[in-house]
């Protein structure tokens, strides 16, 4: 039975504009999976600690892209996930979104695709689009 490895990582917290440089000690199993986040230093508020744990277990990001518009005065509608979703799902989400077409008119915050990839998060419009 091989032993777990201890690793020191450095990355910036992106929760707020302060962008604290975090130093994180993690324990990984032989297959690379994070067993435990042992310590987080360099953060100037508790959000840094929470961010580091999330980042090492399941990094979350808001996905923004575009959707083709039919009958609008713009060709594309900018869209976003209402909340951050797992980064690991972004590529899959992009292939799904690439095939979508929405009809104008559209209002900002309209739901373009509910519960994207069962994340519980909706894909929503970022802008109004008027009719052509």
């Amino acid at each position, binding site marked *: 039975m091989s032993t777990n490895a201890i690793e020191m990582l450095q990355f910036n917290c992106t929760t707020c504009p302060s962008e604290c440089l975090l130093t994180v000690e993690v324990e990984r199993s032989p297959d690379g999976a994070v067993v435990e986040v042992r310590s987080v230093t360099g953060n100037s508020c508790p959000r840094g600690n929470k961010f580091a744990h999330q980042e090492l277990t399941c990094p979350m990001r808001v996905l923004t892209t575009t959707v083709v518009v039919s009958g609008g005065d713009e060709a594309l509608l900018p869209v976003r996930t209402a909340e951050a979703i797992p980064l690991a799902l972004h590529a899959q989400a992009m292939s799904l979104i*690439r095939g979508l077409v929405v009809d104008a008119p559209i209002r900002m915050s309209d739901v373009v695709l509910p519960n994207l990839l069962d994340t519980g998060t909706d894909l929503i419009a970022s802008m109004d689009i008027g009719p052509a």
Partner: protein
Amino acid sequence: MTKTFDIAIVGAGITGCAIARQLARYDLSICVVEAANDIALGASKANGGLVHAGYDPAPGTVKAQVNARGCELYGTWAQELGFLFCRTGSMVLGFSDEDRAHLEKLRQNGLANGVPELAIIGPDRIHELEPRASADATCALWCPSTGYVDPFEVAIAALENAVANGVTFMRSAPVEAIEVAGGEATDGAARFTLVTPAGDVRCRYLINAAGNGAADISHMAGAEEFQMVWRQGNIVVLDKEPRALMPLYPVPTPVSKGVIVTGTVHGNTVITAAAAVREPGDTQTYVSDVNALLTGARKLVPDLDTRRVVRAFAGGRPVIKGTNDFFIGQSAVVPGLFQAAGIQSPGVASAPAIAERMEHVMREAGVALRERADWDPIRRAPDDFDRAPLARKEELIESDPAWGQIVCRCETVPEAEIVAAIRRRPGAVSVEGVKRRCRAGMGRCQSGFCQSRVVAILARELGCDPSEVLLEDTGSWLVEGPLKGVR
């Protein structure tokens, strides 16, 4: 598919276009055969638009004759063809007694070449004529007949006028082979066959105005074996100034006029110089060349803000090895072939006179030149929104709302002006072609704001997909196609 003409002109550079315009007044069928997809894409690009007065070519050379005469003809050509021409005068700046001696030699040279009103002037007069000229200049050769044009506009205007008078323009037709049948040049038979991917062209007389390709054309026809070298011309364009600079030259060296600074018809500042001899076809810019231009320019105009570079480019100027002169005449080997070869600097300044001389040479060779009754020397220039007075602007927008739809903000080019550039004959078929005709994308942002709009207009007007729109010639695609949503 073969088409037959009395005359085929190979090359739609400023030389070929000027010759076509000159010969269009005669009862002849003429075809201009161009390798590229547009006008003036070769050597005609590699210059700063100066209409040099003609004081520096060695007296007695062909160059000396056509340069001074060309400069003289520009006034009439500009009037008839509706292109912008500013006869500003120029100064060759001297900084020492040695320079002054050179300037005096240059003045004598100019007088021998028939250049009018040359004078050596001192610092007071220098700064009266161009307040931004270097305060270190102690003397100058003042030459009132120098001017400048937009070389693309001249070539385009000349060919538009030729086409309006019945000349055929074949683009994307690189000559791959030339067959020459036997017989006399003047017996009326179409002796020459030009093989091109766009179809063959047969003609009785062939005019070689192929610029950097002139040696190849001559070789294909079995005529003179010109040895050509590729001397790079380098150009740096700076942003517009409230007042355009007068052309300023340094004292020339035996091979080059040196680094020249000039205003342009559009109010930009252009720095230009001949650079090293390079591999044929090399149109790359080099850091050392660009820096040499900027340094040289500041010697003439110390307050030049060289941060304001809008574009730097380079091109080849065809020089016949062993001579610095132009070759304009009938081939001594292949009668019926007329050559305008080695048209390097001052090719732009000389173009109208090269055309005139070519006409003379052909007449002497027995080519029947009968004037047409319906020849129209006038070309009506397209409307230029930016330059139009307010009342004309209003009229234009009233005639078509697309005149009020801005596309290029740096140069104030509305959509209708771009559409006109595409619809004129011969019209623009590429983004750069649009730019050369109406300046959309020519400005300080270098099409960062308008390129996608110009692509959309070209696609609409040419009836093609945006992915088929070219920046310049074959292979220069701009976008691959839609990102998403195509089912």
